[in-house]
């Protein structure tokens, strides 16, 4: 096991990693920019090192600075958290070159999954379901119809050379197809000088469902259930829950096993998340994140695993201590990402927290680096903390979330707490009847207009 872990991150995830290290009896080094010298994890760490000015490129992304900090403190491992250098294959390699353990997967796997095309190719090869479509460009209408019927309507006609929505048309039925093809080709020709198009399955109201996996790099891997992260605004997850209200036990087990099996084949090492769009019972691979994710606590709540501890153990060379049949998921968990933003306009609200009182009691977990008197700097993301609740049933979790939200006080800055207080009282959320467009529609329809 490691002697001393350097935490190459900030905010709540830095504190999360610090807590895991402390519970393992491992010494901690906090690194921080000049803007973060008052951060909670800096105060709690065994040692701290200032590595640069506020701009992330000069501090949290400053590889020489991080390695120098390892050198002067004698840290033998680095945990990159999420964001920043967590999916930087070069950083993982440089750490290895300096004989510092990178707590994350092999650089090779970070690199593959960081390249959209390579990731999809790899996923397909590993048996992970992807969005079906034509293999290459299509010029012939009859061929297009054959492919469309094979993948099923609606289909998306896309310029092969395209991007940014230009030359994209949806054909909802066979009757629409030739017109969609013609229009897409004309637009593609005009925009890119190339009228080749390809077809892809079009998803109208997908959910975002992701599978948590753990592998030990020795060919052992398990899945730890799914997370439903469909409540998003501008592609940012807002509220996550597990299990997904949309899946049954068979579906969960099937997609989970596909993912775990893929990771066994890949000899993947560490924690990872395979993200899917889900519609009408089918899963479609989006990408794989080769790091811990913001929403990992809900998986911890229902599995009893400590995912950061697992990451550390795996990075230290330990094989998985459990097999798939040992993973026993129980109850229901929900996470709200509480941001320092106006709950209706989402205008960021950095500044000083004048009063802070997190909720407590049974089934409530708060992962937050905030405290009364803490100044949320304007330089980084606006997360104040994560409120996580668990219950034996989804209803119990929702009722618990409601009461916990009502106890949570953060004064001095705007927060998104009122948004969650509205969501937890919304009947569609209560019914689990939402997709990735739901939240933006709710906001556009004035769902938060009555907020003062």
């Amino acid at each position: 096991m490691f002697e001393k872990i350097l935490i190459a991150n900030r905010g709540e995830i830095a504190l999360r990693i610090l807590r895991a290290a402390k519970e393992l009896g491992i010494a901690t080094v906090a690194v921080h920019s000049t803007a973060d010298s008052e951060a909670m994890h800096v105060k709690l760490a065994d040692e701290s090192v200032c590595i640069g000015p506020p701009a992330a490129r000069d501090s949290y992304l400053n590889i020489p600075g991080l390695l120098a900090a390892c050198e002067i403190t004698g840290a033998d491992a680095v945990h990159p958290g999420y964001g920043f250098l967590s999916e930087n294959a070069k950083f993982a390699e440089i750490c290895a070159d300096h004989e510092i353990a990178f707590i994350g997967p092999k650089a090779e796997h970070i690199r593959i999954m960081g390249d959209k095309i390579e990731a999809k190719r790899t996923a397909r090869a590993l048996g992970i379901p992807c969005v079906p479509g034509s293999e290459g460009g299509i010029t012939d209408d009859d061929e297009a119809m054959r492919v469309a019927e094979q993948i099923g309507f609606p289909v998306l006609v896309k310029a092969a050379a395209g991007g940014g929505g230009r030359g994209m048309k949806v054909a909802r039925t066979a009757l629409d197809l030739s017109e969609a093809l013609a229009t897409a080709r004309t637009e593609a020709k005009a925009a890119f000088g190339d009228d080749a198009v390809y077809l892809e399955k079009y998803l109208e109201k997908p959910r975002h469902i992701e599978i948590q996996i753990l592998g030990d790099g020795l060919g052992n891997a398990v899945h730890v259930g799914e997370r439903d992260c469909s409540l998003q605004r501008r592609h940012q997850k807002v509220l996550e829950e597990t299990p997904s209200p949309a899946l049954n036990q068979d579906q969960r087990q099937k997609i989970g096993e596909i993912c775990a099996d893929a990771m066994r084949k890949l000899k993947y090492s560490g924690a990872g998340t395979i993200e899917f769009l889900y519609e009408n019972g089918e899963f479609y691979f989006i990408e794989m994140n080769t790091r811990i994710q913001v929403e990992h606590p809900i998986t911890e709540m229902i599995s009893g695993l400590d995912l950061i501890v697992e990451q550390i153990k795996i990075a230290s060379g330990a094989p998985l201590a459990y097999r798939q049949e040992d993973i026993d998921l129980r109850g229901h968990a929900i996470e709200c990402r509480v941001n320092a933003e106006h709950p209706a306009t989402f205008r960021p609200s950095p500044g000083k927290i004048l009063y802070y009182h997190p909720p407590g009691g049974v089934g409530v977990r708060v992962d937050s680096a905030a405290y009364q008197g803490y100044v949320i700097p304007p330089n980084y993301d606006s997360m104040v903390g994560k409120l996580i609740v668990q219950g034996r049933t989804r209803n119990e979790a929702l009722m618990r979330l409601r009461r916990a939200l009502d106890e949570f006080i953060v004064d001095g800055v705007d927060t998104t707490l009122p948004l969650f207080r509205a969501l937890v009282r919304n009947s569609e959320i209560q019914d689990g009847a939402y997709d990735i467009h739901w939240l933006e529609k709710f906001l556009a329809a004035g769902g938060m207009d009555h907020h003062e």
Partner: protein
Amino acid sequence: MPKTPGSKPARDTSSDIDAGLVREIALLLSETDLSEIEVERGDLRIRVARQTFAAPAPVAAAYVAAPPAMAVAAPAAPAAPEHDHADVLKSPMVGTVYLRPSPESKPFIEVGSHVTAGQKVLLVEAMKTFNDIVAHKSGTVTAMLVDDSSPVEYDQPLMVIA
């Protein structure tokens, strides 16, 4: 906890400001149990404030095992305020500081040395690379704030050139 030292008058060097007025308002704040006085007229704004409750920010509780004797963090804070800010040469990077080109050599400079802006005064090693640290101004070295071969943080005061 870090108490705001007395009062904090509007940061400015303009000679037009009546220092006596600022002083008077600051003393007034001290006398009373107020936390803030702000006066504004035209372009002039004077604000004096006091953090009345020394909010004890979360700190590792007393029982936490004392951190290993690590020279990195501690010296920076106390050393800095004693010197005029503009005179302090700070580390541009995190690493290990060396006061001499090699273990056998004499130090680059010593307290009392005269240096010219741009003159090499220290080395900071990071990732097996020795980086020259040069004087940010010309003057006399009045204080050396780090020891040879000690770890330094970004922005940590290294020496004073007055």
